[in-house]
């Protein structure tokens, strides 16, 4: 009996809303463009062999630093490899790192924020003070210090980026949850005797989710940017692995031989960051109109 009431209160509004969210999103031109750009980037990087006839690692010594042409859309690099192809394959690393880091940031941040919201005494206060302190430090700066500590392998980079964005997520998760804790559905769930786990998992979390999803899109953008920055100064992804950041780095060191070499990786990073930022901003407006 009590379960029936709780389920209706929690599940009923979620399903129809999630369907209309996409439609409402696509009505805004900037959001629609962002969705299309993100989809194109994902499809092209992960379907790279279908998009490009070249291999990312095969050299053509007759074509060193070739300018952009129909054969080589973005030109070639210092070993005559097709830059467009290398950006597609390198994008896989960048996107995988960004997604994995975002997942870590969300899991750690949400747990952090929820604990802080439930334990409002000195525990919550301490958790939030730590989050504030970490957020005051510029992300690149903290990232460099963590790379000094844990090294610059692919896995440590994912964990480092995840930890970098956890404090901001924690702050958002806490403030969102504090609003939900004052809601009537929460009070009724408690009063019908639902268990703590059940309330968090089936009531509070689904209601906090829209805000968190919008934030995840913004974190993805920032993770791509920070990965590129760290790789650019040589402290991120290490060659021979490639990412958008390492390609940018290699292009930058060959700047005087080919202008297009550093510009295209930079342009791709810019497009990805702008699209994910626009997507996040618009998601926030659609999913949670009260905040914007």
């Amino acid at each position, binding site marked *: 009996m009590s379960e029936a009431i709780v389920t209706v209160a929690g599940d009923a509004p979620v399903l129809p809303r999630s369907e209309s969210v996409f439609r409402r999103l696509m009505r805004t031109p900037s959001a629609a463009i962002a969705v299309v750009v993100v989809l194109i980037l994902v499809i092209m990087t992960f379907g790279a062999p279908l998009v490009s006839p070249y291999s990312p690692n095969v050299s053509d010594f007759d074509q060193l630093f070739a300018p952009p042409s129909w054969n080589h859309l973005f030109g070639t690099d210092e070993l005559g490899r097709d830059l467009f192809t290398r950006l597609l394959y390198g994008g896989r690393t960048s996107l995988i790192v960004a997604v994995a880091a975002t997942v870590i940031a969300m899991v750690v941040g949400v747990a952090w924020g929820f604990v802080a919201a439930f334990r409002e005494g000195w525990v919550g206060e301490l958790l939030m003070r730590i989050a504030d302190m970490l957020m*005051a430090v*510029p992300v*690149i700066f903290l990232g460099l210090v963590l790379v000094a500590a844990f090294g610059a392998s692919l896995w440590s980079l994912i964990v480092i980026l995840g930890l970098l964005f956890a404090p901001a997520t924690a702050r958002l998760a806490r403030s969102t949850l504090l609003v939900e804790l004052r809601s009537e559905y929460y009070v009724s769930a408690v009063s019908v005797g639902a268990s703590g786990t059940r309330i968090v998992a089936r009531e509070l979390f689904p209601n906090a989710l829209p805000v968190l999803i919008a934030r995840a899109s913004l974190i993805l*953008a920032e993770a791509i940017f920070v990965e590129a920055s760290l790789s650019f100064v040589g402290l991120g992804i290490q060659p021979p692995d490639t990412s958008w950041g390492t390609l940018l780095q290699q292009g930058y060191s060959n*700047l005087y031989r080919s202008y297009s070499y*550093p510009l295209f990786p*930079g342009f791709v*990073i810019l497009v990805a960051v*702008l699209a994910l930022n626009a997507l996040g901003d618009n998601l926030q407006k659609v999913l949670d109109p009260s905040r914007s």
Partner: protein
Amino acid sequence: MSRYVAKRLVSSIALLFLSTIIIFLLMRVIPGDPTITKLGGSIKEVDEATLTQIRSDLGLDKSIPEQYVTWISGIVRGDFGNSYFSQFSVTTLIGQRVGATLLLALMAMIIGLAIAVPASVAGAIWPNRYLNAVLSAFAAIGIAIPTFVIGIALIITIGVELDVLPTQGYVSFQRDPLNSVKSTLLPAFTLGIGVAAVTMRILRASLVEIGSASFVRTARGKGLLRSQVVVRHELPNASIPAITQAGIIVAHLVGGAVIVEYVFARPGLGTLLVDSVFQRDYAVLQTLVLATAAAFIVTSLVVDVLLGFVDPRLRVEAVS
């Protein structure tokens, strides 16, 4: 007023002291033996006696509290210890490079404000749809565009093709002020665009909010020109929230400076930071982290004191 300033000063010093403890512990938790740095990674071929010697030279054989006291008493005397990697003291290394970073930050700040303030004011004076759309787009792109993209584009166009400004290195300001500023122009502009975008976002939001205040309606009602209302009445009040958020702008400056210095090969604190990470030079690293923490604490102190002058309500609240 003096009581308010004294109170903020005491809490800032306490915060700075707390951050020295955190930074110190953080550096001891980091995996990896600093003696490896000193020996250039060849620790296995060194006999035990040399290792002990180096540990005691660096003071690493003492207990953690003892090491902390040595470190903190050195800081008070202005001695930040010696670099693990080079033979120089940390003070010397930072002294050599602080000028390049300070000039960059100062010029980027000036360029950023010189773009953001007039643009925000223009947006408020002429509520033209297209003008404001352009300004919003500039702020959105300016925040998102990575500094390395602007930097590389500027190097190619202005540095190499037009060949009017130097793209690499830094000329000391004491030696040659004119060329020093010239060598800083491109990096400062690169960094300044981001600063302008962040400032514009904050300033424009608070200008919109102030626009509906009753004192603004009064000013309009007594027949002032729209430009007079904005410049004399709205801007001073709207700048209070902008000053409050100076920390965000400083964070943008510090974070951006690391990449910008790398792009333009400037011998500044940002490149020193990258080098010390490469070399695992924890002595330099912990000093740079402490310096950054100090910069933020001082910024928030200055902001609070400034706001106390501007808004008397704040200092009454803080003291009582």
